[in-house]
C-alpha cells in the first residue's frame, strides 16, 4: 500500500486523473514485530479524502449494526442474563438508530432436521405424529409470524402448522407442497376453534397445552400419492381426518428435494426472541410404509435427526433426544 512509484514513470492511463497523492512524511510506529521499529507512510488523510467521495449506503451501514446486535442477542456462549446485559450496553452506544435497524429474517429457532439417510428411507409412505406444545398467545416479543411446523420427510407432503402472527392472531394451517404454487394453502382454522383438539400433557413435571396431529404421505397406486392430516379430538377421543389430497408423483420426486428435511421446528421471522412461552414437541413419532404395509410408530431418535438452532434467543428447557423437547426465550 505504501509502495512508491518511481518519479520518472508515467501514471497509468485512465479517463479520470487519479486523486493527487500526497508526499508521505516519515512516520515512526511501534512495530508489531518483536524488538523492532518500522517506518510507515502516513496516508490517512488521503484515504479519508477518497472515502468522503464514496456515497454512503445507509442501508448497508444499518445492516452491519443490525447484524452485530443480532450476534449479541443470540450469542450461543452467553447466558440469557449476559445477553441481555450485552445488548443493553451495545444498544446504549448505538442510541436512537437501534429502533430503525432492520430485522434479520428467516431461520430456525430450534428443532429437528432429518439425517440424509433417514429422510429418504421410505418407499411407499411415511408419517409423523407429534404433540405440538402450542401456547396461545405465544407471549414475549413475537410481533410477526412464527410457525410451529414439521414435514413427514416427503418433498410433496404437507406442513400442518400452528401459525402465530403477533399475539392475537393464531391459526392452524395446512400448506400442501404437492399443490404449490397453484393452491398450496388449504386449511386455515382460527385457534379459538380448536378448543376440543387441545389436550394437557405433562412433561418433566410441567403441564402443557398440546395439539396432537398426524401428517401422512403414502402411495395409493403406481406413481399416485396421497397427503393426509389427522387431528386427535380430545373431546370425542377420536382421530379426525381434516385434510386429504391425491396427486401424481414419483418416489424420486418425494425424496430428492430439500423440502421434507425438517421435523418439528420453531420457524422464526424475527432476529431475536425474548419472553416467549414454552413451545416444542412431545412424543414425536415416525412411521414408514413399505410394499408390505405400515410398520410401527417409533420415537424420533438422535440417529434419525439432528438439532438445528440459528441462535434466535431460544433456550432449551428439556430435550429427550429427539422426540421430546421444549424451548423458551
Amino acid at each position, binding site marked *: 500500500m505504501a509502495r512508491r512509484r518511481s518519479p520518472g514513470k508515467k501514471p497509468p492511463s485512465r479517463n479520470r486523473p487519479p486523486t493527487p497523492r500526497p508526499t508521505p512524511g516519515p512516520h515512526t510506529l511501534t512495530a508489531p514485530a518483536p524488538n523492532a521499529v518500522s517506518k510507515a507512510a502516513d496516508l490517512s488523510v488521503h484515504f479519508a479524502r477518497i472515502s468522503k467521495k464514496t456515497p454512503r449506503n445507509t442501508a448497508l451501514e444499518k445492516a452491519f449494526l443490525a447484524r452485530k446486535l443480532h450476534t449479541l442477542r443470540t450469542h450461543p456462549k452467553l447466558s440469557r442474563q449476559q445477553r441481555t446485559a450485552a445488548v443493553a450496553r451495545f444498544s446504549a452506544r448505538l442510541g436512537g438508530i437501534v429502533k430503525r435497524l432492520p430485522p434479520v429474517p428467516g*431461520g430456525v429457532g430450534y428443532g429437528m432436521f432429518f439425517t440424509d439417510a433417514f429422510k429418504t428411507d421410505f418407499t411407499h409412505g411415511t408419517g409423523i405424529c407429534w404433540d405440538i406444545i402450542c401456547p396461545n398467545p405465544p407471549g414475549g416479543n413475537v410481533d410477526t409470524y412464527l410457525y410451529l411446523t414439521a414435514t413427514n420427510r416427503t418433498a410433496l407432503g404437507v406442513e400442518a402448522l400452528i401459525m402465530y402472527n403477533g399475539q392475537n392472531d393464531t391459526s392452524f394451517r395446512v400448506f400442501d407442497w404437492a399443490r*404449490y*404454487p397453484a393452491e398450496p*394453502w388449504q386449511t386455515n*382454522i382460527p385457534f379459538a376453534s380448536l378448543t376440543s*383438539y387441545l389436550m394437557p400433557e405433562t412433561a418433566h413435571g410441567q403441564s402443557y397445552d398440546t395439539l396432537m396431529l398426524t401428517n401422512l404421505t403414502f402411495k395409493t397406486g403406481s406413481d399416485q400419492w396421497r397427503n393426509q392430516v389427522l387431528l386427535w*379430538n380430545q373431546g370425542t377421543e377420536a382421530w379426525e381426518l381434516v385434510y386429504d389430497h391425491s396427486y401424481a408423483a414419483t418416489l424420486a420426486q418425494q425424496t430428492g428435494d430439500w423440502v421434507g428435511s425438517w421435523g418439528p421446528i420453531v420457524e422464526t421471522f424475527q432476529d431475536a426472541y425474548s419472553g416467549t412461552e414454552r413451545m416444542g414437541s412431545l412424543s414425536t413419532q415416525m412411521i414408514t410404509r413399505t410394499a408390505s404395509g405400515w410398520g410401527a410408530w417409533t420415537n424420533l431418535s438422535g440417529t434419525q435427526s439432528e438439532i438445528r438452532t440459528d441462535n434466535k434467543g431460544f433456550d432449551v428447557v428439556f430435550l429427550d433426544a429427539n422426540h421430546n423437547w421444549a424451548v423458551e426465550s
Partner: protein
Amino acid sequence: MTGRRARPKVKKQAAATRRLPDPRKGAPMKVVDRRAEFARLSRLTPPDRDAERAFIDSKLEMIRNDPRLNDADKARAIARLKARNGVSRKDEEG
C-alpha cells in the same frame, strides 16, 4: 369445532391406511371424516397474501442458513424451490 356435533361418520380408509396403527395405542387407527367442516371453516378466512409470501421467503432463508448444506447444495435447493411449479410441471420434467 366446539359444542355439539353431528354424528360423525367413520371414514372407510383407503387400502394404504387400513393397517395404519394408532400412534397412541398401536391398535388400527379409526378415523372420523371432518374434511368438509374444516374446508368450510377455512373458506371463511380471506387469504392473506403477505403471510403466504412470507412462508416461501422464510423457506429460502432457511436454505441459505442451513449449516448442513454447502454453497452448491444451497444454490441447487434454492433454484429448485424457485423453479418449482407444482406437481404437473414436475411430472413433465420427470
